[in-house]
C-alpha cells in the first residue's frame, strides 16, 4: 500500500511545486517564491513571526486569494476539488467546534471524509492516541487548554489518509515529551509516503526536518536539504544558517 522511499526516482514529480509566486494582502506579503517539496519528506517551513508562513500555507491549500504565479500540488493547481482527499491541513488557530466534545468533533470530520461504522470508530481511537487525548475524549473542546485544543485540531488531519499533510505551527506550547512524540509521528508519516510540511518559528525544530524552507519578510532565504544547507553555510544549527543567510545572502547563493 505504501510506496517505500528508496523506490522513488530522483526526477519524480514534486508533491508541491511553487514557481514565482507572489501574494498580496493589502501589501505584498510573499514575493517571488519558488521551491519544490519532494515526496515522502518532512519539510520545515521556518521563519520569524510575520514572515509569511501562514500565508504560504494558505496558498498551498488553496485558501489564499490574490496569489499570482504557479502553485501546484500533486500536479494539480492548488485548491483543486480532487485534492481535498489528498491534502490534510491544520490551521495555526485550532479549527474545531468548541461547543461539542473531542470525540464528537472527530466523528464528524471522519464522516465528512467518508468514514463510518467500525473504520470510523477505529480512526477516531487511533488519532486520539496519536495526540495523547484518549483520556479527554468525552470533554467539551471549549473546556480544554489551548494546547489540548490544538491537539484536537491536529488529530483531525490524521483521520484520513492524505498524501500531503500541511501543518501550521502544530507544536507551539506543547510539553517537550509530546512535542518529541509528534515529530516522531511526522517522521513515521513521511516514511510511509505521506509528505509533511510543517511550519514553525522555533528554529530548534528545524533540526528535526529533512528539508528546510527559510522565510524572512516574505522572501525565501533558502530551500533545500537541511544537511546541504548547513554545509553550504558552514554551520551546524539551522539558527546559525539563518543568520548567515540574512547577513551575507549573496556570497552564499547556491549555484
Amino acid at each position, binding site marked *: 500500500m505504501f510506496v517505500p522511499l528508496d523506490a522513488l526516482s530522483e526526477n519524480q514529480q514534486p508533491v508541491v511545486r511553487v514557481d514565482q509566486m507572489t501574494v498580496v494582502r493589502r501589501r505584498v506579503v510573499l514575493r517571488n517564491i519558488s521551491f519544490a517539496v519532494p515526496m515522502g519528506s518532512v519539510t520545515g517551513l521556518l521563519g520569524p513571526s510575520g514572515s509569511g508562513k501562514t500565508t504560504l500555507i494558505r496558498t498551498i491549500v*488553496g*485558501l489564499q486569494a490574490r496569489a499570482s504565479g504557479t502553485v501546484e500540488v500533486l500536479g494539480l493547481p492548488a485548491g483543486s476539488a480532487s485534492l*481535498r482527499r489528498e491534502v490534510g491541513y491544520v*490551521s495555526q488557530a485550532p479549527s474545531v467546534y468548541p461547543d461539542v466534545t473531542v470525540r*464528537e468533533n472527530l466523528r*464528524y*470530520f471522519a*464522516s465528512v471524509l*467518508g468514514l463510518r461504522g467500525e473504520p470510523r470508530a477505529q480512526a477516531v481511537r487511533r488519532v486520539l492516541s496519536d495526540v495523547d487525548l484518549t483520556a479527554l475524549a468525552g470533554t467539551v473542546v471549549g473546556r480544554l487548554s489551548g494546547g489540548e485544543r490544538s491537539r484536537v485540531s491536529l488529530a483531525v488531519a490524521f483521520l484520513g489518509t492524505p498524501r500531503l499533510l500541511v501543518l501550521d505551527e502544530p507544536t507551539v506550547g506543547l510539553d517537550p515529551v509530546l512535542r518529541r512524540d509528534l515529530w516522531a509521528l511526522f517522521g513515521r508519516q513521511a516514511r510511509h509516503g505521506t509528505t509533511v510540511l510543517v511550519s514553525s518559528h522555533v528554529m530548534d525544530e528545524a533540526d528535526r526536518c529533512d528539508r528546510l524552507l527559510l522565510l524572512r519578510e516574505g522572501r525565501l532565504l533558502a530551500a533545500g536539504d537541511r544537511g546541504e544547507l548547513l554545509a553550504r553555510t558552514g554551520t551546524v544549527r539551522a539558527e546559525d544558517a539563518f543568520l548567515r543567510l540574512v547577513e551575507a545572502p549573496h556570497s552564499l547563493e547556491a549555484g
Partner: protein
Amino acid sequence: MTVPAGREARTVFATARRVLGQLAHDLGTVALILALPCVLLILLRWVFHGVPGSFARAGPQLFGVFPLIVMYLVASVATLRERVNGTLDRLLCLPMRRLDLLLGYVVAFGVLAVAQAGIATGLAVGVLGMRVAGPVWLLLLAAALDALLGLALGLLTSAFARTEFQAVQYLPAVILPQFLLCGLFVPPEAMDGTLRLLADTMPMTYAVQATSRIATEPGITSALLADLAAVTAFLLACLILGAFTLRRRTP
C-alpha cells in the same frame, strides 16, 4: 466504493447531527427558538386585547413573521461562528460540497422549525383562540417553511458578513424592509405601483399572505399553493445562492 449521491447525503446528515449536537450543548438557544415566537404571540394577543377583530387579522400574519426572524438570527450567527472558528476553512478543504454544508443546517434546523411551528400553532389556536378557517396542519407547514426561509436568508447574508457586528447590522437591512412591506401595515393591494412591485420581490410578503389565507379561506386554494410555492422557491434560491457566495479563497 459507494455511489457519490449516497456519500453526499451522508455528509448532509452527519452535518445535521453535528449541528444538533451543538444545540444539545446549548439549550439556551433551543429555548429561544422554541419559546420566543410563543412569547411574541402572547404579547400580541395582549396588545390587541381591547380591539375586537385585530388579533384575528394580525395574529396569522405575524405567524408568518416571527419564526422567520428568530431563525434568521440563529442562522446568521451559526455560519459566522463556523468562519470565526476556522471550521469553515477546514470544511472547504475537505471533500464536502458547500451546498451540502448548508443542507446539513437545513435538516438540523428543520427539525427545530417543525417543533417550533407545532408549539406556536398549538398555543395560537388552542390557547389564544386564533381562528383558522383552513386545515391546521397547513398552518403548521406554512410556519415551518417560514422558519426555513428565515434560516436560508440568514445563511445567505452571513456569507457576506465578516464580523458578528456586520451580521447583526444585516438584520435591520434585510428584515425590516420586508416587515414594512409584507402587508402587515398596508395590504399589498392598497400600495402604489412601485411599492407593490417591491413588496412582490420580497419573500416575507408570500409567507404572510400564505398564513393569512390559511386563517381566512377554508380549504386549499390555488392562490395559497402559489404563495407556498413562492416561499419554497425563495428558500431554495437563497440556499443555492448561499452556497455560491460561500467563498473559499479569502484575502
